[in-house]
Structures are given as structure tokens and as C-alpha cells.
């Protein structure tokens, strides 16, 4: 009884709850097998030599050469190739982790000392919890209000630092229902250890039910549209506006030629920078007259504005 209880306390790996988890574990176990073998070989050799060649033992001690080029080459080159293999495999997973599939459902995450604020496109907000439907690819667009945090989902084997002043993204697809921990993995101040939460992976039906339950807020894009008007953006960025400013229809995801000759892709980061630091990247053919909205919009409002501007673009999969 006691024995079984104690053994039950030992966990040898976290839950595998995402499409990526199994792949990471496979690489991990492979590395474990390779390095374990090498380590065991070294250890056995050392122990064997220690036992056999102890000072007073009568054994063959005919000197061996001081050095051997073939041997040195072998144990330089062979590990190098093994290492290159490890690199390649690891890099493949990393590229996969950093390239979100195009059909992802987007969810905005804002970190602040010491909580996670989540808003779904449909308008639903939650704190320290993240409801997602099982099987659907989720793309998190994350930023921080203060210091660097890190959105870590051990059961999904992903993590990404959440930086103030810019957006970072990561994606995952839950493969089984249940609740899994969220940790902040980047030290962020006194209550860093309290910045934890739950991802709740639900069946699509439960998820829809949850979305429509409780107090409903307008969809993010709608809130963004209201803001767009109340902040006066529509005064310039409209078809028949008195001031000549770029139209924002179909902006998201398209290339924007800049005044200095560069061309940038209009992603979340570009839109964010254009609202907060409009003077940095002036679209070609327009005057640098837009005022900065820094200190006038909160991070939440920014995400709503971005969500609205993205909704003006047909290419976005909503």
C-alpha cells in the first residue's frame, strides 16, 4: 500500500497533450539513449581501468603510444556527426514550433505582474485560464504590459517569452481534453511563482457552450471598430476623409512599401508599431502626419484595434 503510494508520487514525464508533445519526447528519448550509452561506456571503462590497473596489481603495463591520430580523429568526427544529427532533428521541431499553420484560431494573451489576461476573438475574456477546443490549432498572440514573462505549457511542450513592447506568437493543437498547467517561466518579480494557470481543453461543443455562457462582451473586432471611431482614426483612414491616409482594407498580411524604399509585411507587430510609433515606418506616398497613440490606448485596446484592422482583410481566416 505505502509502496504503491510512494511510487505513484514519482512522475517520469509530463502529460502529452499536443500534436508536438510526442515528437519532442521522441527526440528526448533518442538523445537519452545515445548519451546514456556514451556515458555508460565512459563510466564502465573508467571503473574497469581503476580496478585493473591499480598501483600494486600485477598486470601488463606495456606502454601504449602517447597519442593516436586515428583514435583522436575517430572520437572527434563521430561525435560531430552524431551532434549534427541531433541539431538537425531539434531544428526541424523548432521551425515547426515557430511556424503556425495558416488556419489557426487566434487568441490574444497579455501578461502582467502577475497574471495572464486572455481574450478570445468572440470577445470572451478570462484570467489565468485559457479555454480551447480540442483538435483545433490555436495561435496565441502575446504581449506584456510590464516585464518579460514566458507563457509555458509543459503538457504541450511549448513556451515563448512574452515581451513588452512587441508581439510574440506561438501555436499548439490540443490532442486530448482536460486541464493542463500554464506556468510563467521567465522570472518576473516577487510573485513569479503565482503566475500560473490552467489550459482547459474542451470538446468543441463544450467550448462553444462556454463561449456563449456568462456575461458576453462584443467580439474583439467590434470593440476595435468602436475604438477606431472614438479615437478618431476613421477621420483619416476612411475613403472620403479630408486627410490623405492609407486605407486599411486588406492591409493585414500584405506587403507595405515604405518611404525609405523598404517593403515590410503588415503583421500584428507592424500594425502595433504604426499605432504607437507612426513616425518609424512611413508608408510610401503618405505624409508623416499621424500622431502617436502611445499612452492613449491600453494593451487590451491595442489588441482590439489590431483585431478590427485584421477583420478588414479578407485573407484573414476568421
Amino acid at each position, binding site marked *: 500500500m505505502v509502496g504503491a503510494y510512494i511510487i505513484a508520487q514519482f512522475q517520469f514525464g509530463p502529460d502529452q497533450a499536443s500534436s508536438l508533445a510526442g515528437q519532442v519526447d521522441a527526440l528526448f528519448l533518442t538523445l537519452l539513449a545515445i548519451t546514456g550509452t556514451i556515458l555508460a561506456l565512459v563510466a564502465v571503462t573508467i571503473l574497469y581501468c581503476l580496478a585493473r590497473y591499480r598501483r600494486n596489481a600485477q598486470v601488463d603495463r606495456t606502454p601504449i603510444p602517447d597519442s593516436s591520430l586515428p583514435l583522436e580523429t575517430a572520437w572527434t568526427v563521430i561525435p560531430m556527426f552524431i551532434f549534427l544529427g541531433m541539431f538537425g532533428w531539434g531544428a526541424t521541431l523548432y521551425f515547426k514550433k515557430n511556424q503556425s499553420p495558416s488556419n489557426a484560431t487566434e487568441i490574444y494573451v497579455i501578461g502582467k505582474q502577475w497574471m495572464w489576461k486572455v481574450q478570445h476573438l468572440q470577445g470572451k475574456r478570462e484570467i489565468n485560464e485559457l479555454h480551447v477546443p480540442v483538435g483545433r490549432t490555436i495561435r496565441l498572440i502575446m504581449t506584456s504590459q510590464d516585464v518579460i514573462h514566458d507563457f509555458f505549457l509543459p503538457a504541450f511542450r511549448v513556451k515563448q517569452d512574452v515581451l513588452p513592447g512587441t508581439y510574440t506568437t506561438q501555436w499548439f493543437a490540443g490532442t486530448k481534453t482536460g486541464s493542463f498547467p500554464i506556468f510563467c517561466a521567465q522570472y518576473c518579480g516577487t510573485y513569479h511563482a503565482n503566475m500560473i494557470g490552467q489550459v482547459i481543453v474542451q470538446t468543441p461543443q463544450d467550448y462553444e457552450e462556454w463561449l456563449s455562457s456568462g456575461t458576453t462582451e462584443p467580439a474583439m473586432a467590434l470593440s476595435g471598430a468602436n475604438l477606431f471611431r472614438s479615437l478618431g482614426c476613421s477621420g483619416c483612414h476612411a475613403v472620403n476623409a479630408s486627410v490623405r491616409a492609407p486605407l486599411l482594407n486588406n492591409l493585414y498580411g500584405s506587403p507595405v512599401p515604405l518611404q*525609405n524604399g523598404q517593403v515590410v509585411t503588415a503583421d500584428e507587430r507592424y500594425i502595433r508599431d504604426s499605432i504607437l510609433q*507612426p*513616425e*518609424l515606418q512611413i508608408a510610401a506616398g503618405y505624409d*508623416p502626419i499621424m500622431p*502617436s497613440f502611445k499612452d492613449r490606448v491600453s494593451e487590451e485596446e491595442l489588441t482590439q484595434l489590431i483585431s478590427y484592422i485584421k477583420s478588414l482583410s479578407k485573407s484573414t481566416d476568421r
Partner: protein
Amino acid sequence: MAQTQTAGLQEQFEDLTQQRETSNLGMWIFISTECLFFGGLFLAFTVLRHAYPVGFATAARHLDLLSGIAGTVALLASTLAMSIGLAALRNSDRFLSFLACFGTLACGLIFLGLEGSEYFRAWHEHLVPGGSFQFIGPEAGHVQMFFLLYFVMTGFHALHLTIGLGVIVCMMLLIMINRLHAERYGPLQVAALYWHFVGIIWTLLFPTLYLLGGR
């Protein structure tokens, strides 16, 4: 202890040549350290300039080019004087060496004076980062960042220069009391290396800060 002691030879060395070569090498190692010290600053400057080219160019135009050129030439002149001082000492001309060191000192002070007046002007125009900073224009934040880096970079350079001036004063004293002469010129050689290095840093700082954004 019965060994014959050469004047100025430290006990861990065999002869003055070894001693001189060692301190020379020591200074080169120190210079490589300093390369990385300023290297960090140059990297920070490059990264931020890359991010905010317009703001940095705007800010750079607020520096006085003529004063910058004058300072650079003064520092080059001090480098020249330093080299003459070392060559003179090696060729037993202690008087010229002393004079040249004095010239180095004077040129260094002129440089510091010019830089001081630049600082004063920046302060006068409210370009010193912090509470008193005022700049009208959309790029104010980046202009402030430029001036922060300007003050940190030139400030550390000026600090190095000031230390160098102190060293040169010591060298002048040593030449005066005949502790440095044609047989024992190692310390002046090391001091000269340091001084030239300070000059090199300015040779890089001047174009980086004054010229890159275009005038």
C-alpha cells in the same frame, strides 16, 4: 641577492628587455580588453541606430561638426606628439621628449575643452537626457536615446583620456628626474600605446556619432 641589480629591474625578470616586452604585451592585452569594452557600446549604438535611423540622424545633426573636426585633429596632434616623445627618448633626447609629452598634454586638454563646450551646448539646448531633456518633434524619444549613447560613449572616452593625461604627467616627472632614459623607455612606450588606443577610439567615435546620419 648577490646578483648585480640593474636600476629599475623588478625581481621577477631576468633583464630589462624581458621586462619591457612583458609590460608591452600586458598593455596590448589590456587594449584588447578595452576593444570589447567599447565594442559593447558600439554594438548597442548600431542596434539602436538600425532600429531608429531617422531619429539618430536628426540627433546627430545637432552636434557641432566643426568642433568635432577640431577635437579630432587635436587628438591626432597629441598622438603625433606622443610618438615624437617616445622616439626622442629612445634617441637620448630627453629634453625633446619632455617637450613632446607636454605637447601631448596640451593637445589632450584642448580636446577635453572642446568636448566640454559641446557638453555645455547640449545642456544649454536641453539635449541632456533625463528630466531637463526637451526636443520638439516626433523623434524626441530617439533623439534622447542618441544623446544618452553620445554622453555615455564620449564620457567613457573622456574618462580614459583623463587617466591618460595623469599618466603622461607622471611620465614627464620621470623624464625630469632621469628615471626614464634611452636604456629604460619601457614605461613611456606602454603609456604611448595606451594613448594611441584612446586616439583610436575617438577615430571611430567621431564618424559614428557625427557623420553617419549625413549632414
